């Protein structure tokens, strides 16, 4: 599993490529920590190439929710395949984590006045 970072204007995109499990979740965690340490406030997560996610991957996203809310850091996931999206849904995490269909939707959402 690889995570690629790209910067555009006022947001950064992390693209996840591969299977996110207990073995690989540390790579995502470090990538998010990295962009936060660079004071990024708008983080888009491209999941088009994310073929599998276990709770270890979900836990990485979940562990940032409170700090991001407190510090007005906005994170939006997009391009999830149906099975990956279902894993978020059955735990109810789709109510806590912002998930949209496309990158355009994600860009629009992170720039909304009320997130």
């Amino acid at each position, binding site marked *: 599993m690889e995570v690629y970072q790209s910067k555009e204007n006022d947001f950064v995109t992390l693209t996840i490529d591969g299977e996110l499990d*207990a*073995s690989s979740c540390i790579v995502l965690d470090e990538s998010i920590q990295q962009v936060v340490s660079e004071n990024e406030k708008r983080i888009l997560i491209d999941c088009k190439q994310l073929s599998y996610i*276990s*709770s*270890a991957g979900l*836990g990485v996203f*979940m562990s940032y929710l*409170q*700090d991001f809310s407190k510090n007005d850091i906005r994170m939006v996931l997009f391009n999830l395949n149906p099975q990956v999206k*279902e894993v978020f849904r059955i735990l109810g995490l789709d109510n806590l984590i912002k998930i949209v269909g496309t990158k355009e939707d994600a860009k629009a959402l992170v720039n909304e006045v009320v997130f």
Partner: protein
Amino acid sequence: MKLYFKTYCNTHNLKQVRDFVREGLVQNGIADPDIYMMVLAVDEICSNLIIHSNNCDDEKQIDLVLQFIGDKLNITIRDYGISFKYEDHIDNTLEKLVEEKRKGGLGLLLVKKIMDEVRYETSSGHNCWVLCKTLKPVG
């Protein structure tokens, strides 16, 4: 029919575990969405055993059995590490895990939502998870 798999306690072996379960379910004509979820359930239990019960000691073994009985699947996962305190996790909720900013704890919630029945048994020298599901054939 019974299918057997043996692995060792290294998280890098999780992909092989997933491949074994996926192939076993495909061979037995299980529908795609169910395959993904049952592969996930086994991954969750094995991840916990590798990390928490066996401290990623790759000399420690995990034995996995898929048993198909009519339209039922019983998955047995056995390890020989530290016993899991099932009662400490049985009442976990999503809200509680978010509140405590815990990266772990979601796995068992997922397994309980995916499978029809989840049992944990421990006795001297080994621990055993049994996951049961009534299967839906393709079509």
